[in-house]
Every structure is written in structure tokens, then in C-alpha cells.
């Protein structure tokens, strides 16, 4: 049992030595922003998480590891679906391929609420374990990706995913990126017929310090992207210390009892019942 959620929810007062520099820089900026309640430029804070370029050699220093996480503030989500549209435009998906899907669910008191669901980037991902050809893998930052050149299309990962987060390319994609775009696991566009696709946490954006498309598109500022190691998160407007933010808002993870260790947190607010 490593990487327990409860551990992540503790304020991390003792930073790991190897991450000290980036953490200090980040926490400093996070505190400044939070203190002044200023509206920061969208990309500023994520940008500080990505590898710096060595001034001496001009070569990227590849020492920064992340553990990307997302937080959905369900108190703010109004179910507009802009996240879904932005995701589909970014990845050139078909209309029924809702890598981020907004479910309308009933809460315990008989009312309704909206719950966006993307890939939970599980710590112990069932989809990864069942893939017979290792087409599903985890990159070094804890993001679960798919090599669509390897996938045989057996769909056992769709079966194994408790979150309905995986989508099959039943036919040749009709939406395609500009000619010459070579699909990679990080940016799998165009999608390959006969293989499985899913949310990539927009690693092609985050590795450049940019926000995932759904985060950037959310008009309600309800979606946060952050780094569990650096302990910082942003919704594009505000920046917070992630552990404190999760703890103070009693964030939960969906289907915690399955022990998949999702990297996606939900902040409930109106008596919603995610099954806990």
C-alpha cells in the first residue's frame, strides 16, 4: 500500500530532498497568488513544473518528475459540457468519444448534480494489468497512455476499467488533425481504427507547461490540474497548495473501495453521493 490518498491529503511540510528546489519555487508563487487573490496568467504556474533548460548547454535538464492529478469541484460544475467539446476538438475525436464525459447523477436527497469523468490515471490501473500486449503503459509522470500501434483491440481494458473511461475506435476516424500529424501515445491523433483510446491528461500540453484543454475550457473554473509531488494545483485562474486544498474541501476519490488509487479527486458540496 504505497501512495495512500490519506498520505497525499496531509500537508507536506517535509519536502523530499530531490524535489526541494522546484517545490520551494512553486510554493512561493502559490502562496503569493493565494495571498493576494490575484488572477494569474493561465500558464504561469504549470510552466514552473516543467523541465528547465540548462543555461550552460542549452539541453533540457530532465530531472523534474511529476505526479499529475486533477480535482473536480462539483460545487461549481454546471454541466455545460465545454470540457467535453474542448477535449474532442483538441484530440479530433468523434462525437460519441467523450474522453471527458459529464454525467448527470442523482444525489441522496433526490436532486441532480453533474460529475465530469475522465481517465482517473490510476496508481494501480486495472486496464494496464489486463492488457495482453502491453499497449497500455504508464509514463514516468504516472499518466496511463496507450500505444495504438501495438493495441490488438481485444477490449479487455474497456471491460476492466471501473470508470467507463475507455473508448474504442469502432470505425475509421472521420475527424483528423492536419495532414502529416503522426500519432503518438502522448498525442494519439488521429485515432487508429480498431484500437482503444482515452484521456491522456493532455500530456502534450502539460509537458510544455500548458493547461489540459478541459481545464482551460472550464468557464466555471471547476477543474484543477496539479502535481501531487510539487503539491500545487491550478484551475487556470487561481493556484493552490494541493494537499491543503484537498484536505480543507474534504476531497474524495471515486470508487475508492476498488483500491485503484485514482489521481482524480472530487470536491462534493451538495450532499452528492459518489457511492462512499
Amino acid at each position, binding site marked *: 500500500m504505497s501512495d495512500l490518498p490519506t498520505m497525499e491529503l496531509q500537508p507536506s511540510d517535509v519536502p523530499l530532498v530531490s524535489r526541494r528546489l522546484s517545490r520551494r519555487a512553486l510554493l512561493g508563487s502559490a502562496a503569493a497568488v493565494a495571498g493576494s487573490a490575484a488572477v494569474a496568467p493561465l500558464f504561469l504556474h504549470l510552466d514552473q513544473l516543467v523541465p528547465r533548460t540548462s543555461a550552460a548547454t542549452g539541453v533540457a535538464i530532465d530531472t523534474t518528475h511529476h505526479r499529475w492529478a486533477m480535482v473536480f469541484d462539483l460545487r461549481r460544475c454546471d454541466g455545460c459540457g465545454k470540457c467535453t467539446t474542448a477535449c474532442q476538438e483538441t484530440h479530433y475525436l468523434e462525437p*460519441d*468519444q467523450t474522453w471527458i464525459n459529464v*454525467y*448527470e*447523477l442523482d444525489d441522496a436527497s433526490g436532486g441532480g448534480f453533474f*460529475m465530469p*469523468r475522465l481517465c482517473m490515471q490510476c496508481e494501480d490501473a*486495472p486496464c494496464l*494489468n*489486463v*492488457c*495482453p*500486449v*502491453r*499497449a497500455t503503459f504508464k509514463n514516468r509522470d504516472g499518466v496511463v497512455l496507450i500505444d495504438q500501434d*501495438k*493495441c*490488438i*483491440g*481485444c*477490449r*479487455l481494458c*474497456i*471491460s*476492466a476499467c*471501473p*470508470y*467507463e473511461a*475507455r*473508448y*474504442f*475506435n*469502432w*470505425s*475509421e476516424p472521420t475527424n483528423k488533425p492536419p495532414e502529416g500529424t503522426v500519432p503518438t501515445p502522448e498525442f494519439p491523433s488521429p485515432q487508429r*481504427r*480498431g*484500437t*482503444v483510446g482515452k484521456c491522456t491528461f493532455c500530456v502534450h500540453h502539460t509537458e510544455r507547461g500548458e493547461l489540459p484543454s478541459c481545464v482551460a475550457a472550464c468557464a466555471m473554473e471547476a477543474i484543477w490540474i496539479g502535481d501531487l509531488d510539487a503539491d500545487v494545483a491550478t484551475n487556470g485562474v487561481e493556484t493552490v497548495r494541493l494537499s491543503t486544498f484537498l484536505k480543507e474541501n474534504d476531497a474524495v476519490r471515486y470508487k475508492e473501495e*476498488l483500491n485503484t488509487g485514482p489521481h482524480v479527486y472530487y470536491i462534493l458540496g451538495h450532499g452528492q453521493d459518489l457511492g462512499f
Partner: protein
Amino acid sequence: MAVATIPHHLPWSSEVESAACRPMASPGRFFWPIAALLAALVAAGFVAFAYQFLEGLWVAGYSDRAFYGIYEANLVAFIGVSYGGALVSAVLRITGARWRAPISRMAEAMALVSLLVGASFAIVHLGRPERVLNLITSGNASSPILWDFVAITTYLLATAMFVYLPLVPDLARVRDHLAVGSWRGRIYGLAAIGWADAPEQRRRLEWAIGIIAVLLIPLAVSVHSVLAWTFSMTTRPGWHSTIFGPYFVVGALYSGVALVILVVAAFRRAYHLERFVQPRQLLLLSRIMVALGLVYLYLTFAEVLTVGYTRTREEVSVLAAVLEGPFAPAFWAFMAGGLFIPIALVALPTHRRTGALVVAAGLVVVGMWLKRLLIVLPTATAPLIGDVWGSITITWVPALITLAATAAIPLGMIVLFRFVPILAIDEVERELAHRAAQQGGPA
């Protein structure tokens, strides 16, 4: 190539030989029309598969909320019936049940042919069939599909050996009847690997058959358990169940013995084997079928009661869909037509005629296919978030491919019996000699 694999005029040395080899020499005037019809169906199935390969799996009616369907049910059902053939022959062989002799060749051939047909659905259901060798080049040992791959290929090799070894003395007989040096004689000579009925050869052959027969049982159990685990190693309601391994094994046996009854009854009539295959064989087979059916009924009851009693939300919604929801007509049709009626047909003394046994076996084969669909579809379409169910579209592509697979089993068998004797001549003769010795007179 000559129409007959064996010349008509060969002087067969015994009545058994003559009956067993008659399909090789002259299979009857209905052979070619039937073979042509079955071959046309199989060819149509290949065309449908080619269309699916070019177009993508959407032509099979799948969607993201109905990701498994008919092909997966076929995979379980067709590999399942293979086990029945293997069991009848292997278990009865090990336990020394002498009545098996006239049906063992047909049962073993059915096991091999249906396994080949069933395993092909593991390819047909893939989104990228052409990449199937990735299982070898970058296999992941923790995936149940890799276990399937290893188990099925091992079982296929063992089944092929199990069909071949008892064939050796029979192939030698065919060889001995053919002209020395003729091309047919040479081929059968190679296949008979120098069999001369020497005591040492017989001792070794029986030892080898014994080993394969014993090995085949755990191998077949592993294949059906692993197929079950492909479903139950997920957290999906309806699949995540400890009963699934044994449930699949018993279901495979039940449907498989039923198909053995159909196959034996059909060839008995078509190839005039009544002298060797008697109503007694069919009756004993149907008793095995009923025993297995009762175990399957018990396991179904245990599954439904355990899930339904505690009423876990997700599990109960799938169970309710099966018992009283959209899948209920199919489920109760299976309970009646696949379990109660066939069991009654065999169990009630007044109905124990061959015709009734064949009807019962036919109901079991069709009912168990429906049951496999009822295992796959409700869970594959059940929502894991919210309450919107997925739905599958029935299209002509899987319908045609399923029909082709169904036709491929009789086609494969009648073609096989053009090249090898339909009875295990050697075993049947020894059995007849044994009976004659007991009765103190000629057989």
C-alpha cells in the same frame, strides 16, 4: 484429386472396417450437395469477416457501452462444446468404460473441429486481428487474455495428439489395403508411422494415449476456467464472481456432451452405423448430459441466490435485468428449453427414445449458446456510472459468421471422415471380440 479418397473395390477384412471406411470410399449421394451447402455458408462467413476487417468492428453492432457481444459468446460456446468431445473420450477411456469404443472417434473429431472453429473467434472479435502475434512478441503475463492464448494453444496441441494417437492402428490398416508405392499408400504409410501391431508398439501406444487422456482433462479445465476468468478478473457486476471458473467448466461439459449426442446420432443414421452405435450409447451419453445439466442448474441457482439475497446495488441491477428486465425472456427461455425440458425428456422413462434424446440434446446446444450470450451481454451493457444501459445492434455480419461457424463443424467432420475411419476400428474390434468372448460365441 479423385472424388473418393479410397478406391471403392478394396476388400475390407472385417465388417467394422467396411463400415468405418465406407465414408472414405463412397460417402453417399447426399455428401456433395451437403458439403457444397456447408462450404458455401463457411465461405459466406469468410466474406463477412473480410468486410468487417476492412470496415472495422462497427459492422458487428458493437458500441462503447456494449463492447462484448455475439463473438465473445461464440468463443465460449464453441470452445465449450469441444470439451464435451474430449471428456467423453478421455474420461471414459481412463475409467475403462467399454461402451465408448464406437463413439470415441466421432467425439474426438468433434472436439478438434469445434476447438479450431471456437478459437477462431478469439481472432474474429479483435479490432486488429492482423496484430495477434503481438501476444508473442510483447505478451503481458498478468493479462487473462495471454492466459487464454497459452491455454487454448496447449489444449489444441493436446487435442490433436489425442485424435491422432488412437488413429495410428487404423491408418495402418488403410495403408495395408492400398497398393504399395501408390501415392495414397505412401501418405497413409507416413501417417501410420510404421505401425505393425507388434506387442511392444501396442504397449507404447496405449501408454501414450493414457498419458494424453489424463493430461487432457486438466488442460480442458484450465481452458474453460481461464475463459471464465477473462470475464471475472474485472470488477464488473455479474462477472466478478468466484463461481465463474467451475460454472464455465460445467457449462462446457453440458453443452459438449449434448453436441456429441447430436453428432453421434447424425452420423449413425447418415453413415449406417446402427450395427455399432446402438441406442444404448445415446442413452448413456444423455444420462451424463442430464447429470451435468443438474449441476449447471444448481450452480445457476447458487449464483442467483447469492447475488440476489444481499442486494448489492450494481449486482442487483444486472441480476434484475436478467430475471425480470429486458433479458428475462431469453433467460427464462434458457431455463425452460436449455435445462428443464431436456432434463425431463431424458429423465422421464416414457420419453427415452432416440428421437427424444436428440431433441433434448439439440435444445441443450441452442440453450447453452443463449446462456453464454446472457452471461456476456447484460454485464457488457450495464452502466458503471449512472443508470443508462448500452445496447447492441444485431447486424448481418456476426449473424452470418455465427452461421458459418455452425456449418464449419459438420463440414470439418464430414471432410475429416473422408480421410480417416469414422469408427476407431481397432478399438471396436477388440470390444466386439471381448463381448464375444464373454458370451462364448462369435460377435
